[in-house]
């Protein structure tokens, strides 16, 4: 059914990446990017892109479906809910820091804070909420923060991702910085994120099956079989950078937040399906 069409992929790779339009707006970028991936995988429905390699490879999809039948992150999500609802020492809870009590809002993250002029990711907002209530911040990449973020994502299941880039020079600059990071080759292997996830999705890189960029942030935080636990998106950024022998940047650094801003914007309209399992 969703067999990766080798011919098509070859055609996709040969597809001349649309010539850079001078100063295209984020929305134009997004539309062009969706079109690019639709041409590359014509028989993959738009919503299915959130399932990455599992939308392109039958053998992988079957393994994924048996994992999702009773996913190993269920304990972490239950723990995340317990942590989310446990009041801080001052009696308040996370709900007080978020609109709608933090329920069903994952699809709006990350957003650009026009006062502070910075990208606010969900994990950053979680720790800022803790600090505002006199609590110690959590570690960024795994553990409690991943469980809480996974619980909050689970309350947004199916809601379309809705990232906004306001017509504000700082917001556009953050978006552009994230885009530049995404397309810049780095590390001794000299790959960019796009080398794998834009130019070669649907192909094998050794024994790994490359997923398309479209839809990637929709399934975070993710429980990877390799980690044996949940991990946040910035843990994945650092891991990928390390794989190409580029020095990873600190989690929740401005560069990684701008990167998340750009990448998530590209998935606007796709449903939140986090948390999810991955290899």
């Amino acid at each position, binding site marked *: 059914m969703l067999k990766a069409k080798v011919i098509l992929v070859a055609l996709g790779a040969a597809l001349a990446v649309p010539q850079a339009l001078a100063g295209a707006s984020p929305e134009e970028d997004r539309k062009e990017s969706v079109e690019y991936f639709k041409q590359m995988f014509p028989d993959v429905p738009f919503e299915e892109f959130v399932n990455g390699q599992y939308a392109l490879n039958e053998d992988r999809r079957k393994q994924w479906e048996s994992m999702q*039948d*009773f996913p*190993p992150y*269920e*304990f972490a999500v*239950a*723990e995340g809910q*317990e942590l989310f609802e446990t009041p801080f020492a001052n009696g308040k809870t996370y709900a007080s820091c978020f609109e709608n009590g933090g329920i069903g809002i994952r699809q709006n993250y990350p957003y650009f804070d026009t006062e502070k002029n910075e990208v606010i990711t969900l994990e950053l907002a979680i720790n800022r909420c803790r600090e505002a209530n006199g609590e110690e911040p959590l570690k960024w990449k795994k553990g409690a923060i991943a469980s809480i973020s996974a619980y909050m994502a689970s309350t947004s299941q199916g809601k379309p991702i809705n990232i906004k880039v306001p017509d504000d020079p700082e917001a556009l600059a953050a978006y552009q910085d994230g885009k530049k990071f995404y397309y810049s080759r780095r590390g001794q292997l000299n790959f960019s994120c796009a080398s794998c996830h834009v130019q070669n999705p649907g192909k094998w890189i050794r024994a790994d099956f490359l997923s398309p960029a479209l839809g990637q942030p929709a399934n975070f935080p993710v429980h990877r079989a390799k980690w*044996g636990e949940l991990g946040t998106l910035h843990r994945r950024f650092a891991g990928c950078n390390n794989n190409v022998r580029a020095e990873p940047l600190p989690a929740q650094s401005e560069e990684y937040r701008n990167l998340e801003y750009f990448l998530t914007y590209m998935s606007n309209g796709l449903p939140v399906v986090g948390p999810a399992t991955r290899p």
Partner: protein
Amino acid sequence: MASSIRVRAVENNGVTSLKALVRHPMDSGFVKDSAGNVIPAHFIKVLTISHNGKNVFVANWGPAVSKDPFLECRFKGAKKGDELTISWIDNEGASDSTTATIA
């Protein structure tokens, strides 16, 4: 404290399908931690599923069963509303148990 066992048991036309996920590291004893010393073997040895005091399924597990192990089994003779008891014991003598109602 949430139990370490999550269960879904559903009966239709006489056959109960039970799925369980157990929270356990299932360390094999063959893995080293980042400091280079071996993580000792720590895994569930026996897991039983019983209905009306009788075992309907017994799993003898070794260290090659994945972390946070998953199990599915099917049996006859139980109906909606019946209660099942799922218990496990590991190689360190720790154990846990929970009950589930068949939907």
